[in-house]
């Protein structure tokens, strides 16, 4: 006679459920922390061009760039319940309103090429200021893509792997 015997070993079900709840709580904390870190990362990456301009500026005139993209990237709680932790970083509607150049800086653009702009250049690295003295200039080069959104997604993807490893007790 062929028989099959099933024997459950190890933890009993109440203990498994308790362990699962503990992991679930830890996951919620980790995910919220990740959302905060992702916000900081996106702010940092989006401000790279700002730093470049300021570093090159002789008089450190903040008019070179006010860092409006970075200032308007925030973490938003979309849903935070017992079962769901859902956060958003960098609300497009807000960026469109407060820093409409967010897309040109992220993806790169040539929309200013061959179109006259007024202002002047200062400093040995040639930082442009849209104020007096006024000169008419025609840019020949487009805006280089910073890809701060894609790079933040990459940052999040990498950290999620670490979190999963941690929750499984790997580290």
């Amino acid at each position, binding site marked *: 006679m062929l028989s099959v015997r099933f024997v459950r070993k190890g933890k009993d079900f109440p203990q498994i459920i308790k362990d699962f709840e503990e992991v679930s709580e830890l996951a919620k904390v980790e995910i919220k922390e990740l959302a905060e870190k992702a916000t900081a990362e996106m702010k940092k990456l989006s401000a790279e061009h700002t730093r470049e301009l300021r570093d090159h500026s002789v008089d450190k005139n903040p008019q070179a760039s006010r860092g409006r993209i970075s200032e308007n990237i925030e973490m938003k709680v979309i849903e935070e319940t017992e079962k769901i932790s859902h956060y958003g970083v960098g609300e497009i509607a807000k960026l*469109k309103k407060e820093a*409409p150049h*967010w*897309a*040109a800086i992220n*993806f*790169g*653009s*040539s*929309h200013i*090429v061959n179109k006259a702009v007024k202002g002047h250049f200062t400093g040995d690295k040639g930082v442009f200021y849209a104020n007096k003295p006024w000169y008419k200039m025609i840019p020949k*080069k*487009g805006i*280089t*893509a910073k*890809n701060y959104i*894609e*790079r933040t*997604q*990459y*940052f999040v*993807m*990498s950290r*999620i*792997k670490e979190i999963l490893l941690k929750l499984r007790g790997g580290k």
Partner: protein
Amino acid sequence: MSARTSRNIEHSLKAYLVAQLELAEWDNVTVIFRDKDVYADTLTLPIITVKLSDTEWLDGEIGSNLLERNPLLLIEIHAKSEGQRLDLKDTLIPILRSGFPYYSYTIASNEATQGAQDGYCTMASGTKITDKEVNLGIDKSSLVQKDRYRHLITMVVSRGRLE
């Protein structure tokens, strides 16, 4: 001079895309490295740019200080029309998801000459290809032709080797 790994990955991907697009009968596509070169008058659409962005270094194995390199690759399509943008991205994604051969290149006079194949780049574990339309938030008719129909594909690759 031998190129280092990041540059080799970029060159290998470019060579792979050129070859695969020809096989797929897309012989009029220009593949270049730097997005700023897209706007050069000498280049005509469609254009694909290849760029290696950030790199994540993962711990290799217990007891070793070797690391696994997982770079982020950005592949951007600049198409002539909306239809061409969609066709090109649907052509590229199956080509990319199977990975590409890695070559070690020698650089002479700023030009890469193909060396021997030295492994294969595959998608890093736990990652996926993403693709999205590039929307600059500006009316398309006011953009230059090269900015109107753009599409961005991202992927993370691994050589499966510790360094």
